[in-house]
């Protein structure tokens, strides 16, 4: 019964123990909690600001001709970036053709055949390689591909150079995701295969790799999506071109090639409204690509676990 509690006891109970809001310690606690929420909000504001602005500007200038036409001259109507989409696909394709086999085989060595000491060193090198600035990958590809082609008198800038630069950036991502997904394959599966008399190659190729395949595909897709947004490695390896890429004959293939990312860069720094609008539309495509692949891969990982 509330009446039976003496007045004084009641007040000490509430002010001393239950009602602690005036103590400096709890005040500090509340203030810091508010600050943590502020930090969380500040971290999310840029994401929402970028995504909403790109969506508004991008959708308003997106139409069908954007995918089929060539970049327009300044101050004219219409036009698109079909050649840049084709160029991006070609270069990302070349990059994946180099980086996926190398990366998957390297990761197989790490999880299946290596000793712990070597593994540590190679994982370390992989992590350091993923920290190499993307512009350095461009400089590297310039050195080994563009200058070689100049030396052979085959031309200079080419989608091959761009693809090599992108491959350097994709490689560590593919190694890491493949490495992780191979480690998740239960060792009983390997033991069972070896117990049935399979050789190491048969075990890896027929049992371990198929089990890890969905995760490897997810990782590769993420790497491809990231690579297609990279600009710095392309601006002096593939350059840009207002024309469609030529696949045949081969000497026509070794020529400056357009890409979506470089198109955004070139058209962002010009004062012409129509080209700026195309830059927004191209950004929207790049952002949608990474957004969708991120969400799908997240969903796929959730499904598996």
């Amino acid at each position, binding site marked *: 019964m509330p009446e039976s509690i003496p007045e004084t006891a009641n007040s000490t109970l509430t002010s001393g123990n239950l009602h602690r809001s005036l103590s400096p310690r709890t005040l500090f*606690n509340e203030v810091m*909690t508010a600050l943590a929420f502020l*930090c969380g909000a500040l*971290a999310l504001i840029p994401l929402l600001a970028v995504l909403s602005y790109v969506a508004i500007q991008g959708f308003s200038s997106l139409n069908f001709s954007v995918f089929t036409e060539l970049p327009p001259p300044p101050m004219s109507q219409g036009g698109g970036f079909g050649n840049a989409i084709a160029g991006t696909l070609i270069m990302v394709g070349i990059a994946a053709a180099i980086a996926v086999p190398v990366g998957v085989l390297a990761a197989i060595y790490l999880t299946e055949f290596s000793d712990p000491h070597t593994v540590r060193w190679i994982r370390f090198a992989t992590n350091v390689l993923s920290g190499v600035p993307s512009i350095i990958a461009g400089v590297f590809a310039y050195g080994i591909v563009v200058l070689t082609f100049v030396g052979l008198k085959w031309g200079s800038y080419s989608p091959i150079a761009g693809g090599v630069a992108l491959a350097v950036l994709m490689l560590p991502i593919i190694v890491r995701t493949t490495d992780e997904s191979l480690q998740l394959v239960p060792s009983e599966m390997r033991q069972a295969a070896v117990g049935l008399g399979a050789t190491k190659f048969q075990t890896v190729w027929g049992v371990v790799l198929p089990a890890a395949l969905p995760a490897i595909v997810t990782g590769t897709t993420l790497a491809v999506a990231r690579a297609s947004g*990279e600009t710095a490695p392309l601006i002096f390896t593939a350059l840009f071109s207002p024309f469609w890429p030529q696949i045949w004959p081969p000497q026509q293939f070794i020529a400056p090639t357009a890409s979506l990312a470089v198109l955004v860069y070139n058209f962002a720094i010009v004062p012409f409204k129509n080209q700026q609008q195309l830059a927004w539309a191209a950004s929207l495509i790049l952002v949608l690509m990474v*957004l969708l692949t*991120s969400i799908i891969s997240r969903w796929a990982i959730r499904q598996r676990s």
Partner: protein
Amino acid sequence: MNTPAPNPAKIIRPPSQWDKSLDRGFIWLTRFFALAIAGILLWIAVQVTIQAAPAIQSSGLGFIFESTWDPVKDQYGVLPQIYGTMVSALIALILAVPIGVGTALLLSENFLPLPIRTVMVFLVELLAAIPSVVYGLWGIFVLIPILKEVGGWLHSQLGWIPFFNTPLAGPGMLPAGVVLAIMILPIITAISRDSLISLPPELRQASLGLGATRWETIFQVLIPAAISGIVGAVMLALGRAMGETMAVTMLIGNANNINISILAPANTIASLLASQFAEASGLQISSLMYAALILFLLTLLVNVLAELIVQKVKRI
């Protein structure tokens, strides 16, 4: 069930010579590619050094302390670009470290229900997935107009501080630093959060059980225990900020001189490469390669240190 049992003699046989050599070849192939990853790092260093050789011979170490970049007179030095790389990365860290660690704490402690935290972790990861050039485009059309207001206020109110003694005309060190802060925030948050989450729960329980409040626990127990992971995260972020190219090139103004004001245009090594490489020739190319070598070595140093710290944390 209806399939007849295959003749076991047909399946059970020792591996043939072909199987054995295939096996050995496969292991060698994978070993070759694994070593190739480490090899690529070395190859990049060698390749860039070879290309930079003419510039290294003509200007030597003076290249680092020389502040003119003049393709007409063939005089090259990268002091302003090194300064710009360091200062823009520093501005980014000053902005991103408190916010990033704060967000990591928010997402590692039980401030919010788990589903909301999961979504927020994913959103912060997305921040890292947006292409650099898109941040640049957004920076030109959205961030710079906003920062012009802020910069104007800073200049008029605090103009007596050397850092604010020029007005912000458009591109400059501050917009570049802010956009870098946005881009490195996810790295700081993700790795700090990982190291906070991996702390043993006993630490929290013991501290709370002794009567500490939540934030006393965080400051006196959790952060000290996770500090090496947080430092590793900050180092990785520093490496990323120093090497980031496109967004910085589009926002920093590409002015090859040293200005103490963070509202003035500046340049970084990466954006020097991005803006000049395609049109360069002769000694200029070689000098750009020299600059690239310096950037490569700087980021390599920072990344190796960061990896060593992060690896040490993982082993504990």
